[in-house]
C-alpha cells in the first residue's frame, strides 16, 4: 500500500438490500460450529481496541457448559476521540442487533444486552422502539433470543468488560481479577461473549456473505477494514471506514491539514506518533493498534496541553481500586505540572517514565496499564514542549 491513499470501504453502514432478520434466519441454517469456523477463518479481531480474535471468543463461550449464557454488546464508547459506535448505533442499529442474535445463536445464549453509555441516552427511545420490532422478528423466525438495553451513567472504566458486568450487576464499575475471563464467568458469573458494536457488524457481514471478502482486505495480522473516528486538526473530521494496513503517513496525507505534527492513535489510551515516525508506523496490530480513534495535531498545538488533558481524564476516570492506576495517574499529572512550573527538575520526567512503565505491568486492568502509552510516547517525542 506504499504511497497509495487509504482505501475507503463501505461495509458497516451499507443497508441497501439487506434485511437483518433474514440474515439471522439464514445464519441459523449453519451450525454454530460452522459459524465459529467462519469467524476464525475471517481473522476478525475485536474492534474495541484490545483485538482479541472474535471467533475464538465465541468458541470459548460456546464450549462452556452452562444453561445460562449471555451475549453483550459493549456500547460504552468512552475513549476520547472515539465516536464511531454512536454513529453505527444511530445509523444501522439493526445490523448490531442481528450481530448479537447471530452470536447468541452461536454460543447458545437466550439473552442479549446492549450496554450503552449514559452520554448516549438520547439514542434510547429509537433503539428501544427498533428493538421491539427486532425481538418480535426473532420470535417469528423461531430463535429464542431477545435483546435488552442497559445504560451506563458516566464512567469510562465501564468499557472494560469486567467493569461493565459489575455495573450491570448494580455495582461500582471496578474491573475484576482475571482469570476467570468473561467467556467462563462474565455477567452474573455466567459465560458471556462481550463484543464491541463495530465487531458485531463485521460479524454480521461475515455471517451474511462469508469470510472471503473480509479476509482479502488488510494484512496478515490485521484483516479487514475498520471504522475510524477522525478528529482534531483535520478538514475531514468524522467517520471513515478504511481498509487496514495503511501507514500513519498515508493516513495523514489523506486526512491531515498539511501541518500535522503528531497523530494520537487509539484515543487517550493509545500512542502518540510524531511526524518523524509517520512512515514507519502501520495502523494495525503489527504496528499501532487502535479502537479507531485518530486525533491529529498540527504545529499550533501544545503537546503539554494534550498530555495534561489525557492525564486529567485518567485521574478522574480511574476506578480508583488499584494503587498503580489511582495514585500513578495523579503522580503523572502533578509531576508534569511540577516540571512545567520548574518545581521539579526536567530529569524528574525520567522518574515519571519509570512510574508509567510500572503502571503498564502492575495495574489491574487495561486502563491503568495503557496510561503509559500516551505518557511515554508524548514525553519521549515532545520533551521540550513538556518542560518549557
Amino acid at each position, binding site marked *: 500500500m506504499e504511497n497509495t491513499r487509504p482505501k475507503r470501504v463501505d461495509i458497516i453502514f451499507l443497508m441497501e438490500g439487506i434485511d437483518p432478520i433474514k440474515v439471522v434466519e439464514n445464519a441459523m441454517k449453519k451450525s454454530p460450529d460452522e459459524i465459529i469456523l467462519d469467524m476464525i477463518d475471517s481473522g476478525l479481531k475485536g474492534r474495541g481496541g484490545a483485538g482479541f480474535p472474535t471467533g475464538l471468543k465465541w468458541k470459548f463461550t460456546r464450549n462452556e457448559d452452562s444453561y445460562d449464557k449471555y451475549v453483550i454488546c459493549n456500547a460504552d464508547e468512552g475513549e*476520547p476521540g*472515539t465516536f464511531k459506535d454512536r454513529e453505527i448505533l444511530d445509523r444501522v442499529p439493526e445490523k448490531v442487533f442481528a450481530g448479537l442474535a447471530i452470536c447468541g445463536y452461536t454460543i447458545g445464549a437466550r439473552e442479549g444486552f446492549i450496554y450503552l453509555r449514559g452520554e*448516549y441516552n438520547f439514542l434510547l427511545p429509537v433503539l428501544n422502539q427498533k428493538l421491539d420490532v427486532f425481538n418480535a422478528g426473532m420470535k417469528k423466525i423461531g430463535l429464542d433470543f431477545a435483546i435488552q438495553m442497559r*445504560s451506563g451513567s*458516566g464512567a469510562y472504566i465501564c468499557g472494560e468488560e469486567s467493569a461493565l458486568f459489575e455495573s450491570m450487576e*448494580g*455495582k461500582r*464499575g471496578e474491573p475484576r481479577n482475571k482469570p476467570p475471563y468473561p467467556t467462563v464467568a462474565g455477567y452474573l458469573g455466567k459465560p458471556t461473549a462481550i463484543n464491541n458494536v463495530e465487531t458485531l457488524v463485521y460479524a454480521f457481514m461475515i455471517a451474511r456473505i462469508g469470510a472471503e471478502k473480509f479476509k482479502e482486505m488488510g494484512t496478515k495480522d490485521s484483516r479487514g477494514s475498520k471504522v475510524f473516528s477522525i478528529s482534531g486538526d483535520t478538514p475531514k473530521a468524522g467517520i471513515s471506514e478504511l481498509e487496514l494496513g495503511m501507514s500513519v503517513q498515508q493516513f495523514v496525507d489523506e486526512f491531515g491539514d498539511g501541518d500535522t505534527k503528531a497523530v494520537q492513535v487509539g484515543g487517550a489510551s493509545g500512542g502518540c506518533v510524531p511526524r518523524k515516525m509517520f512512515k514507519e508506523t502501520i495502523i494495525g496490530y503489527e504496528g499501532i493498534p487502535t479502537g479507531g480513534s485518530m486525533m491529529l495535531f498540527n504545529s499550533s498545538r501544545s503537546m503539554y496541553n494534550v498530555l495534561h488533558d489525557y492525564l486529567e481524564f485518567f485521574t478522574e476516570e480511574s476506578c480508583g481500586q488499584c494503587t498503580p492506576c489511582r495514585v500513578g495517574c495523579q503522580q503523572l499529572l502533578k509531576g508534569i505540572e511540577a516540571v512545567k512550573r520548574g518545581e521539579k527538575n526536567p530529569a524528574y520526567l525520567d522518574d515519571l517514565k519509570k512510574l508509567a512503565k510500572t503502571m503498564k505491568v502492575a495495574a489491574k486492568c487495561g486502563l491503568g496499564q495503557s496510561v503509559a502509552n500516551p505518557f511515554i510516547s508524548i514525553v519521549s517525542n515532545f520533551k521540550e514542549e513538556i518542560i518549557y
Partner: protein
Amino acid sequence: MADVQQIIKDVTGIYGKERKALMPILQAVVKTKNYLDDQDLIAVAKALDLSAAEVFGTASFYTFLDTVPRGKNVIRVCKTISCHMAGKDAIIHAIEDTLKVKTGETSVDKKFTLLSANCLGWCHKGPVMLINDQVYPELNAEKAIEILQKYQEED
C-alpha cells in the same frame, strides 16, 4: 418521596428486586429529579435490601448519579481534548456569565447546574454539551446561550 416509591415500584416491576436492578432504579430517579438525596438512597437501599452505604458508594461512582442537589437542567460541557481544542473554554465562560454561576454550581433559581464532563463522544463536532439527555454539538458561544434561553423560557 412518593414519586421515588413509585419509581422503585415501576422499575423493580421490570428488573426484579435483585441488585442488578440498582442502576436502572438510580437512573430512573435521576431522570426525574436530576440527583439522589439521602431519602432516595435509603428508599432504594430498603427496596433492594442493601446497606445505605453500599447504595451511596455505588451511586457516587457514576458521574451522572449525583448525590448532591442539582438544578432542573444539568448542563455538561465536554472538556476533553478535541472539544478543548475546538474552544470549550469560550462556551463555559459564556454559560458562566449568562447563568452567573461557576462550573460546578447551580443557578440561584435552581434552573441550571453547570458541570464539565469527560469525552461525550462528539470529537468531530466539538465543542459539545449535554443538557440533561439532549446533546448539542458544534457549539459556539452565541449558539450555547440561545439554547439556554430556550430552557430558560420553559415554565
